[in-house]
């Protein structure tokens, strides 16, 4: 009863992602039937999780009224760290990825929450520095091949119950994110921070601590995305992920996360990521160059902004007590 999922009234904005996804499926399915083939849908379903994890992380940052443009670089660093870790300690060493993410998130959170730096400047600084660290770890950007590439391939390509292990893990992480956002005190504090940053301290919630938690979650999920990247490629990719931050922000916004903070839900964000992935894959099937797909994603981002305008314009919140 007290979960945030069941709150009415915020509905409209969360319908956008499912509607967009449905439209994309209908459109591409109509234009090219092979889009709806099992193989292709499976393809989308496996490819989208990378973006989905990044978007969910981004969602936490945006819900706290910030955002993080370093997630792409963080994922690349995490991918490298995971590969190095796995090579040194076997599969458990993959956890070096999320740990690296957590470290970056702590730094971002401290810069924003303690030092009071604007999120864009803070995460821009870490973006550049993190890229540098990833290069440093890998002798100027050489990929780090996994020694036990076979195990990685098993995890990311051999289906167990219809889906490879790595994707089950991703789904588990998504469920965990929903739990954190909707059912945990941390999630509630993050949403409160985004809703009214000046009031959190007044009700006894630590401002800086909550801000740090939000960015930690953001980068942690970027870290998991990095692990996924490593498993899929069989190597650590220190220079991957450029441009992913923009797609992640787009997915989070299409998924109904309010840039003004305080409003977020996990499932629509995942659907937003699925939509962007479907768009990219669908356009690819149409034989359209990836550059045009890029135009489409850009227009979708602007469109998601226009959508916020439409929601504001046509469904204004009434405050007048005497009506």
């Amino acid at each position, binding site marked *: 009863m007290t979960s945030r999922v069941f709150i009415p009234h915020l509905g409209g904005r969360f319908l956008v992602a499912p509607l967009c996804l449905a439209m994309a499926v209908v459109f591409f399915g109509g234009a090219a039937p092979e889009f709806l083939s099992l193989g292709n849908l499976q393809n989308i379903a496996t490819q989208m999780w990378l973006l989905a994890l990044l978007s969910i992380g981004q969602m936490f940052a945006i819900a706290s009224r910030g955002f993080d443009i370093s997630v792409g670089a963080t994922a690349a660093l995490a991918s490298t760290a995971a590969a190095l870790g796995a090579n040194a300690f076997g599969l458990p060493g993959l956890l070096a990825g999320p740990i690296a993410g957590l470290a970056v998130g702590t730094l971002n959170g401290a810069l924003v929450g303690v030092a009071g730096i*604007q999120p864009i400047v803070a995460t821009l600084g870490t973006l550049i520095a993190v890229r540098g660290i990833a290069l440093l770890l890998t002798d100027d950007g050489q990929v780090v091949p996994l020694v036990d590439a076979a195990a990685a391939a098993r995890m990311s390509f051999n289906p167990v119950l219809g889906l490879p292990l790595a994707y089950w893990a991703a789904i588990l992480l998504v469920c965990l994110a929903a739990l954190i956002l909707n059912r945990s005190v941390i999630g509630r504090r993050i949403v409160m921070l985004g809703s009214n940053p000046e009031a959190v301290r007044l009700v006894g919630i630590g401002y800086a601590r909550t801000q740090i938690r939000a960015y930690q979650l953001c980068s942690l999920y970027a870290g998991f995305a990095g692990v996924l990247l490593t498993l899929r490629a069989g190597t650590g990719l220190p220079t991957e992920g450029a441009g992913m931050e923009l797609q992640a922000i787009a997915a989070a916004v299409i998924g109904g996360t309010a840039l003004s903070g305080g409003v977020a839900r996990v499932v629509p964000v995942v659907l937003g990521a699925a939509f962007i992935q479907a768009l990219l894959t669908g356009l690819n099937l149409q034989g359209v160059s990836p550059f*045009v797909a890029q135009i489409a994603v850009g227009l979708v981002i602007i469109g998601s902004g226009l959508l916020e305008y439409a929601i504001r314009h046509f469904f204004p919140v009434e405050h007048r007590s005497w009506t």
Partner: protein
Amino acid sequence: MTALAIRMARQVRDRINMPASFFVAIALFALFALTVPRFATSGNAENVLRVASILCVVACGQAIVLILGGIEFSFGSSVALASIVTVLVVPDYGVMGGFAAGAAVVLLIGVLNGALIARFHLPPFIVTLGMLMAVAGLAATLAGGLPIDAPPSEAFSWPARGRVLGVPVPVIAAGASVGTLFLVLAYSTIGRLWYLVGANPEAARLSGIRVRTTIFLGYLAASAFCALAAIILTSRVGSGQPSLAPNLPFETIAACAIGGIPLAGGQGRASQVLCGVLIIAMMNNAVVLLNFPVAYQQLMIGAVILGSVLLQKSSGSIGVLWRSSVPKRGGR
């Protein structure tokens, strides 16, 4: 007459009012001059200025947008699109026609941004980010993903390599940009309107100011600076490149932030832009002179961005006097 001159001089001094980043720039210069070989030579100084000039011109535009409380990401791909359009147009309409077409493209993107942000009240963050991606895609599509070479000519390379009275043209352009920005922000009515709208758009509207027009003109002006930079950049690379300067928006935001312009809007001066740009340029240059690997370069630049912004946050005493007295909202 002298009284007037003194008053004018005092006014100018008050307006320039050394920002905190000025001292950071000086300190950095001193540090590099002492520790980095060949840093403090006139040849290197010219090199620094030349490299910094494009960043400087675009940062002037970014500053206007930041003062308005907005942010502009689309610079990164609009210069790329401009370079491609320029190169495509040059064979038919000549060098001037090419540059004019390139500049027009950038202005058009500015118009689009301004219209979307001002008319529909969209978050500038979303609009310009979307525009960045869409225009990058468009540029790559036009060019087929590969750079297109421009027919080399004296006129084509003049904006990047020419000299007037011994001073490189890009440096003159940068100087003119900062000068223009200074005059516009300090003295013009539109500059005042940008400050007012950036400081509190609702209060500006209720004071009878045309907020939408003001915002629109701000993005247009910003794109004008970007157009100038696009010409120089295209001339420098001598080709149309789909990924010409992908980090330009981030670098300009960083320059403004390092210079001390708060992203909250309503504040910012030309001198801060200049200092921010010089700090970044000196950093880049020193790292190259020291022959550091790319990894260290990036680490250091990231650290300097964060460090100098942190420093300004904590230094309540120098330069930030006129901001330090602003209380947090919620207090009496």
